[in-house]
């Protein structure tokens, strides 16, 4: 969680230098969802996400150097500079892809789960998406299929209350989004997405259920976006935000809340936490210098990767 925060704060610091030449969708304030969800997953479980991809990439175990190099458009980036911030990928860690088309990885994750069922590989697939994705028809089509075939998938709905500047209530009469798929036979549940430990626990239970063959699971985690939809701004003053909304939705920053909780309920030592913070800062430093030093792709890389080479027969 802290790695996500520190990395994204570093992105903010770097951004004005124009070294990151592509838009960034930050998860600042929403880290507990990605952290809890990914921690509950096995490394071999597959995750499919959106353009808001830094948090899940880090949480799922993607290499930090590869992420910063990708943001810098370098050849050493996790997508060799071709994907950028919106399209992080870490197959070795189980992050199968991130898409900038809203809802588009929901069916992809569902098909991943279909393959797992066919192959009996014991994996659970996870589709990670926002409250906007549930507007798209493919969400319902995918859920219908997953329910029909009892697929091992967990649909994780990260509800940060906005799709860009559009409120959930601007788009749905039923604002308790976890209920939207009920008619299809999938009863979702809503949880506090700002409590990393609660996310971890509920997600673990969801994964367990999906893994044992009981069919798909839908979990909605409520959180709040700390920055603008895209870019660095704290746009709380903009007309679209309800005034004081953040304060109403949560008392504390999720990271501070977790730290406090760890100390209070789990007996963590402040010193140990400080050590973690130092380690994280060092790791981020290293990743940034790696990215700075890495090379841009060679010009001929433009034409590479359209097709994968066909293996000899």
């Amino acid at each position, binding site marked *: 969680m802290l790695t996500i925060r520190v990395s994204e704060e570093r992105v903010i610091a770097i951004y004005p230098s124009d070294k990151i030449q592509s838009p960034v969708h930050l998860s600042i304030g929403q880290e507990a969802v990605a952290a809890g969800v990914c921690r509950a997953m096995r490394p071999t479980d597959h995750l499919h996400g959106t353009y808001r991809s830094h948090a899940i990439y880090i949480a799922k175990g993607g290499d930090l150097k590869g992420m910063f190099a990708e943001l810098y458009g370098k050849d050493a980036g996790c997508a060799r500079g071709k994907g950028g911030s919106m399209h992080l990928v870490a197959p070795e860690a189980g992050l199968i892809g991130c*898409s900038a088309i809203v809802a588009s*990885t929901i*069916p992809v994750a569902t098909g991943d789960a279909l393959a797992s069922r066919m192959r009996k590989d014991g994996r659970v697939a996870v589709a990670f998406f926002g409250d906007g994705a549930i507007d798209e028809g493919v969400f319902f089509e995918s859920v219908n*299929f997953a329910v029909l075939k009892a697929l091992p998938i967990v649909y994780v709905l990260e509800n940060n209350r906005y799709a860009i500047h559009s409120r959930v209530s601007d788009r749905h009469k039923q604002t308790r989004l976890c209920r939207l798929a009920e008619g299809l036979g999938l009863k979702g549940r809503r949880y506090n997405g700002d409590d990393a430990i609660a996310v971890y626990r509920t997600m673990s239970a969801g994964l367990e259920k999906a893994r044992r063959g009981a069919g798909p699971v839908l979990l909605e985690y409520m959180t709040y976006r700390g920055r603008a939809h895209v870019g660095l701004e704290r746009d709380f003053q903009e007309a679209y935000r309800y005034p004081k909304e953040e304060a109403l939705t949560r008392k504390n920053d999720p990271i501070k809340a977790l730290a406090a909780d760890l100390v209070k309920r789990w007996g963590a030592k402040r010193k140990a936490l400080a050590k973690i913070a130092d380690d994280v800062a060092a790791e981020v430093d290293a990743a940034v210098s790696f990215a700075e030093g890495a090379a841009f792709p060679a010009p001929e890389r433009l034409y590479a*990767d359209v097709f994968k080479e066909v293996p000899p027969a």
Partner: protein
Amino acid sequence: MKTLKYGEAIREALIYAMERDPSVFIMGIGVDDHKAVFGSTKNLVEMFGKDRVFDTPISEGAMTGIAVGAALNGMKPIHVHIRADFLYLAMDQLCNIAAKWHYMFGGKMSVPLVIRAAIGRSWGQGAQHSQSIQSFFMHVPGLKVAMPTTPAEAQGLMLAAIADPNPVILFEHRLLYDLSGHVPDPPAAIAFRLAAVRREGKDVTIVANAYMAVESLKAAEFLESRGISAEVIDPVTLVPLDEETILASVRKTGRLLVVDSGWTSCGVSAEIAALAAEKAWAALRRPIRRIGTAPVTCPVSKPLETAFYPNARTIAAEALALLGLSSANLEVPALTTTFKGPF
């Protein structure tokens, strides 16, 4: 060598691949029913079971994404559409996801997916059930596209598509399913990047694929009777395109007529005409001509429908016009199919 119909040849390719590769499976509306997609999936559900051959909800968008996801996780889905018209609902998954996953992730991911879609003239199906939209997929980089014409190609390209680690779309013209031809025994894959010289000639090059190649051969026969020697080139794979074979023919004859089963504007025929105008210009002795379906929505009324589609007669007329000859009183048979709906 044996003789099979086009639909049977596809079926044999599917059986061949499914017997050898447990990751291959078939999904799509009606693949397990008694009509079996022109017979091309006949009895496969009995042979391979419901897990490997299954009907789907009518959800082309998500089902395409589901096929992509299964492909990403080690399976080899073959997603079947009885009409290419339904691909409009799958465009996002095909063009934004399948086509881009390999490139966008710097070569790390790949989507070994096969799409089959029937195109072309049918029988009074009209506006929304007869479209030939292959050009869309020739426009967006990242998809391999083929339009097999013969049973051997249908079989060989199906095997190649299944072996390919990339998304491949196979367009099957519905008037071809019943045509017979030799196929190798055992089935053999045909490498992509294929343009077949269907007939050699020296006066004019007719580039035409799938069912249009069949009609063009009839036109060429007729032209022969008028003393005109037409070469028929069939760009069987559109992506990758065997440019050299097309260009070599144009350079030889100096005259090019392009025929396609789709609309001409921004169509396959536009691309091939543009290609020749770029790369074989010096050899051209006459303006290029193109023919496709009329630039309108497909009508049902028989006389209008007949006039909507290119056929041997209109192809021959275009070739004659290209050569500056009159095309009055052509006795070319207009259409020789016995195909009669509904599919």
